[in-house]
């Protein structure tokens, strides 16, 4: 699938592929999403903002240059942005494909990575040569993160992103490292029309993590352990909708991961914490009946999630059609809506 190479958003005109009951495939646009959602459907959105999560600095012990990219927020809550998983990168920057980047310097537990005059990352754990558990040290941490950080971006883009290019219309506390981008093509105009139609909206927080590490071996670890929070109001709405047999649509794979993580004994629990859940085709989705998501690369963890919703035959057929039509992939690309509640979902 061709990549969307610019952050320009097309809102209503963005392509929308709908895979609905009985694996019916429709190609439409986001402006027509009202036709595919019904009164009393419940749509759950990710309220997190995206922090500029790429940092350049040097290892204090060796003075070697290094880039670290935050990979996932580790909690305990958005008031404390100290604890993260991160990947290290060597020479080069976002204009170079991540797999072609230089080897990063070796770091050890206790190493300090200096990222600014008032921003240091202390290495707490080395999960893999490049996968680190870090703790930030700063007198003014949140403002320093914004001051020193750059948006994580990849070489298929043709322009350098600004912090606002990475925010969705639902952005709140900054705990995501890459955007929960399924919402990119949406305007409040569309959301308010959905509400006027009777679609209910609820929200949660989930730290959308890094999508690519530059290493096939490390990519297999994705998604990493990520922090989420489901407010009581949202848990109540989901549980009521479930009791009443209404459709529950997760707006993005991060939302689905949070919901599935909090699902126990037939209901969603209002909760916050870290999730290690990996949604694979064998995972039985219990919390939601639908998903809005981007157009993903075959073989990625995102695609595994799609296959847990709809049979892979249906997904592959839909993606073949999408490629022929010219759908665009990646975060600024087109999107799909899966409402396969009669296909595989409990």
């Amino acid at each position, binding site marked *: 699938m061709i990549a969307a190479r610019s952050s320009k958003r097309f809102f209503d005109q963005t392509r929308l592929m709908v895979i609905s009951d009985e694996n019916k495939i429709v190609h439409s646009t986001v402006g027509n999403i009202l036709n595919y959602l019904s009164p009393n459907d419940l749509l759950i*959105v990710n*309220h997190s*903002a995206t*922090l500029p999560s790429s940092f350049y600095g040097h290892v204090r012990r060796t003075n070697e240059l290094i880039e670290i990219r935050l990979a996932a927020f580790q909690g305990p809550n*958005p*008031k404390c*942005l100290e604890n993260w998983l991160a990947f290290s990168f060597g020479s080069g920057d976002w204009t170079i494909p991540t797999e072609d980047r230089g080897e990063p310097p070796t770091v050890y537990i206790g190493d300090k990575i200096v990222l600014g005059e008032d921003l240091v990352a202390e290495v707490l754990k080395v999960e893999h040569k490049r996968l680190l558990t870090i703790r930030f040290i700063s007198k003014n941490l*949140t*403002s320093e993160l*914004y*001051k020193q950080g750059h948006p994580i971006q990849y070489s298929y883009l043709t322009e350098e992103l*600004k*912090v*606002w290019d990475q*925010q969705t*219309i*639902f*952005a*709140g*506390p*900054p705990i995501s490292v890459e955007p929960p981008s399924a919402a990119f093509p949406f305007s*409040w105009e569309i*959301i*308010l029309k959905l*509400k006027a139609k009777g679609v209910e*909206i609820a*929200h949660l927080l989930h730290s959308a993590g890094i999508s690519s590490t530059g290493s096939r071996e490390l990519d297999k670890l994705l998604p990493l352990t990520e922090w989420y929070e489901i407010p009581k109001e949202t848990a109540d709405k989901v549980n009521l909708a479930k009791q009443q047999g209404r459709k529950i649509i997760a707006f993005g794979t991060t939302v689905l991961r949070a919901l599935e993580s909090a699902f126990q004994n037939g209901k969603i629990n209002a909760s916050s914490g870290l999730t290690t859940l990996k949604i694979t085709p064998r995972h039985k989705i219990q919390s939601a009946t639908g998903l809005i998501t981007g157009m993903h690369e075959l073989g990625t963890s995102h695609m595994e999630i799609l296959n847990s919703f709809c049979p892979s035959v249906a997904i592959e057929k839909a993606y073949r059609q999408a490629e022929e039509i010219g759908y665009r992939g990646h975060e600024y690309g087109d999107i799909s809506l899966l409402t396969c509640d009669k296909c595989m979902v409990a």
Partner: protein
Amino acid sequence: MSLGYWKNKNVFITGGTSGLGLALAVQLHNLGANVAILARSEDKLQELTSKYPQIVAIKADISKKESIYPISGEVQSRLGDIDVLFNVASYLGQTPLRLFIDTDCEDFEEVLQTNLLGHFRLTKALLPSMLLKEHGVVVNISSDAAVNAYPRWGSYSVSKAAVDHMSRIFDEELKEQGVRFLSIDPGDMNTPMHFAAIPDANPDNLRSPNDSAQKIIELISNQDFSQVRRAI
């Protein structure tokens, strides 16, 4: 509704280290609100937080587009979703005030960047929380210069007239979602800005910022949104 409305409300005030913004910050803090303030001066922020350590202080310049998401990210990280936003920070333009024809285009632009675009951008960045929770109040501070054509107040007047209309449009578009807007003319107050504009003003004829702050707080406590623009 009583002043108990403010207990545990998350309140964000731009221009919170002097004049009306400072008065709002202290009074709302005393009413039990969780208060965050924004200002450009580190010294003034430190002075306030040394007296009121629970008040969250954010140093930034609202007139810069690059500052907006760092501001909204920081305040929502440190305080949580904002219930009431007070857009108080204001720039008068070059003083002594000049005839509009003598006003530098760049100075006019700077006034609009602070008084209008800065507040538009910050409001836009903080509205998602309010819209998702279906409640919230945005208070923009206006002026009688928004409706009266006082000579030499050109840039400021135009910016405040625009603020009034921005408030009306936002309110019309979003009131059914539970988010309300007010544009408040707080009267002529005994503030540094007033003396910058009119150095020989008689302080006895000016209202205390504390009195204006109290009136604004009461208005919101009573949830009186019958008119968007108010002179108090």
